[in-house]
């Protein structure tokens, strides 16, 4: 029993009828963010109350993925009006149900017309907050698996790659490598066995885009991987998820099982010779396993220590076979590109950075949460329009992008467009999409120290510059932030950063100095204040009395 296009359309129709059959639909966010403020109980309360009142045919309650504005959780949305309610508790349930058909509960309303919702453009997140991530039918009702059908039945692998190349999509895992180029390389590798790997390690400690996508719309990633498998000639895929994301792991497992049952994974998919299977592998708490070669070692059950490249995974990957490694968000972009064409995608964004990018806004900003904007959006708009500015009359100081491999961008560069090249030009990187906003209470020396401590403890320990260098840099920063620094330490810091950047084995060591380099560049005065005046201008560092020092 292989699935046909009619079956797919049928499933979609039944699902749409089911949903349109009720007058109202209440979408409760059940992604990790809102779950951690008890949205699960809120959903239960709606269910109980509706069945108590016998309104099942009038109002449908649905657990959906991330609605974006995590700061206002638990968040719910009432359809068809699209009204958002924020900070909903179990006690508000009756009142909201009472209001259906009348005017909304003003006390809880969260304006859908604010910049946070209006300035975004959603491709990757188009289904987030809309569909129930645990029901494949819901995904299919939103044109799910149509991309896979189109690719398998109406396109050759070469044509699929051509569309991806035409779209100008670049890897969303950090480095921004052109996806079409990578696919071409793997497709050209001569081997009967090839692998697809989805990198869902998301190690950047301030980013939660990949988690949200997997929790809110796991089928989109599966579909992207299957299309990739067809394009490059692979029949087996792995999703490498960090163990810290149990909910994402659970939903991915559920989604894979559903896809297998339906026949969009397995043998003879859509009545073709194409077969594709996906397995989940768990990370175990090592940032370096996001690096391709370390990730491969980890899937093979070994220490996650990178090895020198070349050979690149495209020629010599898992167990020595050609392997395509892409990020979650990269795969999430594939189905829409196939459905709507590469040119449509290439029409969004800037000259060299196409499409949209999902960012995780966090730190000292009013609207923390998940956003998706076209490439090239001004940084200022992200922070002050969508992000709603800095809470509590504090002054903006810097925005950190790219996590431990990125840099801090000061106020003077806020008007730049966000794309791969512009970010690199100011000493940061796009990274996977973490964006941490800092205000005047954050000390930049302390922030640099925080990231260096991270890199030091995440260094795999294989190569000397990174293993010993990160430790030495951390000790210097620790001394400086404690008021024990010497003026010459700044020069030593600079030299060490330069050494790591140029001689480390893998990307971790090569980019670990970026937070230090960028803060030294833009906030040197703060370093000097710590060293010369033994004073932390932001008031964040505790100066040690000389006898307390190590």
């Amino acid at each position, binding site marked *: 029993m292989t699935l046909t296009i009619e079956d797919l359309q049928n499933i979609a129709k039944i699902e749409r009828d089911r949903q349109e059959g009720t007058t109202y639909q209440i979408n409760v966010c059940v992604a990790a963010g809102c779950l951690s403020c008890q949205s699960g109980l809120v959903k239960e309360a709606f269910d109980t109350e509706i069945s108590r009142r016998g309104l099942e045919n009038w109002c449908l309650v649905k657990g959906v993925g991330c609605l974006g504005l995590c700061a206002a959780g638990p968040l719910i949305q009432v359809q068809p009006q699209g009204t958002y309610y924020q900070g909903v508790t179990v006690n508000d349930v009756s009142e909201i149900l009472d209001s259906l058909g009348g005017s909304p509960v003003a006390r809880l309303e969260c304006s859908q017309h604010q910049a946070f919702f209006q300035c975004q453009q959603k491709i990757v997140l188009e289904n987030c907050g809309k569909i129930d991530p645990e029901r494949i039918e819901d995904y299919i009702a939103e044109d799910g698996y149509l991309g896979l059908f189109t690719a398998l039945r109406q396109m050759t692998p070469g044509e699929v790659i051509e569309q991806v190349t035409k779209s100008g999509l670049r890897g969303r895992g950090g480095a921004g490598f052109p996806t079409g180029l990578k696919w071409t390389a793997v497709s050209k590798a001569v081997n009967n066995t090839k692998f697809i790997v989805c990198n869902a390690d998301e190690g950047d400690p301030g980013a939660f885009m990949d988690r949200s996508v997997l929790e809110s719309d796991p089928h989109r990633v599966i579909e992207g991987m299957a299309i990739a498998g067809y394009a490059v000639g692979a029949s087996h895929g792995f999703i490498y998820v960090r163990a810290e994301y149990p909910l994402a792991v659970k939903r991915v497992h559920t989604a894979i099982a559903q896809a297998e049952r339906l026949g969009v994974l397995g043998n003879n998919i859509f009545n073709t010779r194409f077969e594709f299977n996906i397995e989940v592998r768990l990370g175990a708490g090592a940032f370096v396993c996001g690096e391709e070669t370390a990730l491969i070692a980890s899937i093979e059950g070994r220490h996650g220590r990178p090895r020198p490249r070349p050979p690149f995974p495209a020629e010599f990957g898992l167990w020595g076979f050609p392997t395509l490694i892409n990020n979650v968000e990269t795969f999430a972009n594939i189905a829409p590109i196939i459905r709507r064409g590469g040119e449509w995608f290439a029409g969004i964004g800037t000259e060299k950075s196409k499409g949209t990018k999902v960012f995780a806004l966090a730190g000292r900003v009013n609207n923390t949460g998940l956003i998706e904007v076209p490439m090239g959006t001004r940084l200022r708009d992200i922070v002050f329009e969508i992000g709603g500015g800095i809470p509590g009359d504090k002054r903006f100081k810097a925005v950190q992008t790219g996590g431990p491999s990125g840099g801090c961008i000061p106020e003077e560069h806020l008007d730049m467009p966000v794309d791969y090249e512009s970010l690199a030009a100011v000493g940061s990187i796009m990274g996977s999409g973490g964006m941490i906003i800092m205000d005047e209470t954050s000390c930049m020396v302390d922030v640099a120290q925080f990231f260096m401590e991270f890199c030091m403890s995440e260094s795999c320990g294989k190569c*000397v510059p990174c293993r010993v260098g990160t430790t030495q840099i951390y000790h210097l920063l620790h001394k400086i932030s404690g008021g024990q620094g010497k003026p010459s330490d700044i020069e030593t810091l600079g030299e060490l950063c330069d050494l790591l*950047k140029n001689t480390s084995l893998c990307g971790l060591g090569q980019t670990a100095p970026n937070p230090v380099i960028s803060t030294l560049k833009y906030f040197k005065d703060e370093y000097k204040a710590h060293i010369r005046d033994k004073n932390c201008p932001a008031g964040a560092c505790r100066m040690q009395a000389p006898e307390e020092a190590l």
Partner: protein
Amino acid sequence: MKKPLRVDERSLRADVNPVRLLTFKIDDRDVSARADETILTVARQNGIKIPTLCHMEGLSEHGACRLCIVEVKGMSRLMPSCVTLPRQDMEVLTKSDRVLDYRRKILELIFSERNHVCSVCVTNGHCDLQALAVEMGMTHVRYDYIYPTHPIDATHPRFSVDHNRCVLCLRCVRVCDEIEGAHTWDVMNRGISSKVITDLNQPWGSSETCTGCGKCVQVCPTGALSEKGKSVAEMVKRRQFLPYLQMMRHRE
């Protein structure tokens, strides 16, 4: 011009066509190479010295100490010559100021990591690390010493391990796995807390898998692994067995 090549089989890489020949430049000298030979191999064939630490003829490449870095024209990052293959017309510099400066800093980092006190060491005078310091003219360490405290394990009847002198080159791990086939050694933890261990991080003397062959002791570049009963400067390492075993195993 085909002269007999002595190539370390383990540095052969199956992912490139092994018969292609190419020419490139090392320090402005024209050299030729088989496409599967590393820059280091070719440099040594031509009498050009490049310092190495984790590299060991007869073992797989590790590419971790980064002392063998060289500058390649057109690339901002430095490349480890022990694992980098040359390309046609590549221009390699092994002694530019930049290379020498970085190498010395890396060596100083190695010295700052553990407690290398030559004057009381069994390998004083026969130590690869010490020789590198002399060769590279390292006079002082500009970084603060980290001063870890590592105990000495002398539970093995014939050998002892002093982690204070270990540079984590992993020659012991590789020789035990690749030549002896026991895989008694491995690394625990990560980053700066990495440490070589035997079996389940247990005293060496209680290891169930150690055959007592002593290969690890002989390949260790420093006094970290040594034979018991040697006093200061008496431990000389004997490594002839590696090329010999290699030859015997690969004879036709």
